[in-house]
């Protein structure tokens, strides 16, 4: 509730002062705006802010990218806003991720489908992690899943997405791969963003955390949290190389959370191409490579039509997994 004011305000800003629209070369957004469909501090928020700042630093946009936090419904509120109210806004891009595709695949944005927006480009992928607090007796993923298998009520898993969302699904994929029979018994607690979920892990209210590498990083560095599995095909590079993969622990679970942007369907082709090329230029810059490395983002470079196809494939795949696991009919 308290965040509403914030986001409305920030929303107001973007509508503000539009006097300085200049077009130096090609199409330029007058009031570049990025909607982060969650509260500040989560993955979507990070996507908007980092990209907004980097685009400006590289001179790709002239004015400061305004970031609007529009939380609610696991991104559904923002999606409905874009489809219904902002359908032809060329200045607007929205942070999306596997979580968006998941909710779309499960029909969890009432009345909305993935083809109602234009998918722009990806900026990398964030692999899922399952973590416990540093003083937890649990040290490996099989230990945690054994506890869940024996008594699902004994373990509460916290995540930043709503029930049935991507953070939830990652645990279910792992539990499914480990042979937990009815994965719906896994106890999942939804919080408003990864930050709040980690805090409750530290508070001892919950026993495990499911989220992304970038959300857990700060707390791993401080020694409060230990990552028991990263859901990537092989170990990540750099400072993340210590995290064991689920695969090497004998559990074939992979959860890649790609991050990218979508835009309103009515955006002009000129604007669409301009945004795609801006994000593409950003992706290739050494500055962005550094940010990816610092935040545990793995490479994933898809643009324009390629990205559009990727999302449609991804939606189908999640639909299949969800059916297989039994959380949708």
């Amino acid at each position, binding site marked *: 509730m308290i965040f509403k004011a914030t986001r409305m305000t920030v929303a*107001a*800003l973007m*509508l*503000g*002062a*539009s006097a300085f629209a200049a077009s130096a070369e090609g199409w330029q957004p007058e009031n570049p705006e990025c909607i982060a469909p969650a509260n500040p501090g989560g993955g979507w928020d990070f996507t908007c802010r980092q990209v907004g700042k980097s685009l400006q630093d590289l001179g790709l946009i002239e004015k400061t990218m305004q970031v609007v936090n529009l939380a609610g419904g696991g991104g559904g509120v923002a999606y409905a806003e874009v489809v219904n109210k902002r359908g032809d806004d060329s200045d607007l891009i929205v942070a999306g991720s596997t979580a968006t595709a998941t909710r779309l695949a*499960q029909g*969890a944005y009432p009345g909305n489908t993935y083809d109602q927006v234009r998918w722009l480009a990806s900026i990398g992928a964030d692999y899922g992690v399952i973590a416990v607090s540093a003083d937890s007796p649990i040290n490996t993923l099989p230990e945690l899943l054994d506890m869940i298998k024996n008594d699902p009520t004994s373990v509460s898993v916290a995540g930043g997405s709503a*029930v*049935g969302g991507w953070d939830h699904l990652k645990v279910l994929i792992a539990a499914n791969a480990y042979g937990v029979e009815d994965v*719906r018994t896994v106890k999942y*607690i*939804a919080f408003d963003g990864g930050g709040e979920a980690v805090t409750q892990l530290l508070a001892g209210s919950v026993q495990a955390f499911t989220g992304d590498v970038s959300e857990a990083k700060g707390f791993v560095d401080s020694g409060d949290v230990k990552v028991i599995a990263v859901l990537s095909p092989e170990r990540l590079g750099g400072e993340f190389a210590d995290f064991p993969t689920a695969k090497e622990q004998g559990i074939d679970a992979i959860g890649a959370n790609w991050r990218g942007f979508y835009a309103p369907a009515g955006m002009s082709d000129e604007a669409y191409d301009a945004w795609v090329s801006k994000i593409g230029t950003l992706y290739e810059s050494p500055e962005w490579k550094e940010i990816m490395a610092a935040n545990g983002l793995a490479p994933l470079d898809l643009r324009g039509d390629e990205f559009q196809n990727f999302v449609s494939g991804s939606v189908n795949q999640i639909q299949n997994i969800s059916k297989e696991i039994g*959380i*949708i*009919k």
Partner: protein
Amino acid sequence: MSDRIFGVFGVLLAIGYAMSALAIEESFLSDAVGPKAFPLIIAAILGISSAVIAIKPDPEPHWPDIGRFVEIAAAVVVMVLYAEFLPIIGFVFATALAATYLAWRLGSTIIGSVATGVGTSVGIYVIFHLVLGLSLARGPLGF
């Protein structure tokens, strides 16, 4: 009497609220409590407190006579019109008109009302738009 009517209205409101709470569509995968429970608790509190108000009313408040009611209703209509026309005719005009009306009804002279209306409108425009940079509705003339 007012409190009794108010209490009965509150009970009806609570029943209506509870019914629309029961009509909430459950998602395919829910938590242990679900989206209905808390609204139902609220409906119960709303109903009980309304019933208490109806049973033990406070002394009658002072209601205005019919003329004053019309006055308030007219002001509400003007405000609604203001909200509807703001995006169409622009901030400065709409605000000047609405503020003039309110000033007039609050007892200013005609000239005083117009002065108040225009002053309010321009003053707000300067502070909110030019100083604070908030976006206000743009009319056909650009302000």
